[in-house]
């Protein structure tokens, strides 16, 4: 299906950043992205308006991520290895991308998704509203609150807010 890759190519870096930022690591993000691309590949023939490919794919990535979280929790419960994630103070040994990934994981899911779409994929507020099925004021609120909260988490993780 070369047509699929033709549409994917220009937005591929955005898709990678979105998935990785949602999942909190490159490895998990690439897993989520591959799951999402398999779904998109199967659903592509039914996508009538190919101009909407970008938003359509971002929506699939978001949905796939949510399914992936559920699956991972179930798997951890089944193997009795599930430990609730508690943010621990980490000093400045993290590289910036690791620090940001970790900080994003402590954001509420809707705020994280909105912020990542806005900052890392260049999606507009209206587009985010479409992906999330939310109104424009709701998206704006998520962005503002998400940014404030992210700042606080980064300061805590980076030690900036400790003193």
């Amino acid at each position, binding site marked *: 299906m070369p047509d699929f890759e033709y549409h994917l190519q220009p937005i591929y870096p955005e898709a990678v950043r979105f998935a990785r930022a949602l999942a909190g690591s490159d490895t998990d993000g690439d897993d989520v992205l591959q799951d999402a691309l398999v779904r998109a590949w199967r659903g592509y023939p039914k996508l009538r308006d190919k101009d909407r490919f970008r938003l359509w794919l971002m929506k699939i990535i978001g949905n796939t991520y949510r399914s992936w979280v559920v699956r991972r929790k179930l798997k951890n419960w089944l193997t009795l290895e599930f430990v609730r994630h508690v943010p621990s103070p980490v000093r400045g040994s993290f590289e*910036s991308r690791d620090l940001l990934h970790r900080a994003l994981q402590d954001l509420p899911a809707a705020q994280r998704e909105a912020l990542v779409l806005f900052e890392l994929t260049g999606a507009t507020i209206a587009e985010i509203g479409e992906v999330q099925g939310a109104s424009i004021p709701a998206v704006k609120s998520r962005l503002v609150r998400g940014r404030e909260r992210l700042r606080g988490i980064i300061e805590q993780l980076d030690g900036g807010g400790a003193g």
Partner: protein
Amino acid sequence: MNDRKGSEERLLGALADDRPGPEHMADMMSGVRERARAAEMRRRRAGRSAIAAGVAVVAAAVLLVVPMSYDVEVGDRLVVSWPTALAQSEDIDAALDGIDGVVGRKIGYRDGTAHARMVVIGPPVGEVVAAVREVLADHLPDHATADIARSPIIRRVGGNVLAALTQGSFRVAARGMTDDEIELAIIEELGLIGVRGADAEVTDQPDGSKRIDVRMSDSPYDSLTFEVEL
């Protein structure tokens, strides 16, 4: 304070410039195509399984519900004959009784010849014939001749299979049969519905009717009905 306020923006900005290498998309799409192909094969296999299951359900429904009528070979009749003067016929009869697959047996004598009529159900008839030959070889002298005649027992199955499985009943169309043939026919029918080692005896009554006694040592049925049309 301003540095702190901008910390998340700097980090987000750094991440926004993060670009995967050129080979990343090629590798990713290779995995996507492979998984999509595997998923498609699984879907097709599941589809075929569903069709097979559907066919099985329909076939079972046909067998259990739809009335049908067909001929089926359900066993064999063997008639073993030997000269009574050359052997202890009771010993041969007793030995034939122990052969696996012989579900009923009647012995009669006529013109110096013993005739053991046997109903065989279950094992291949060739194995039963071989066992019969061994019995005859054990009890008859070398120069004696014995005959073994075989004919298949064929039944027309009517109604539906569900009824055939659940009913402990049968019918014998005995018009024109001799008493011996009626006895054997009853033993056959009993053997076919799972009653092994039964015996039947037909005796003429003074009023012209016939009395039929059936003896069964073991039966899988709580009650059993049958009809003999004379």
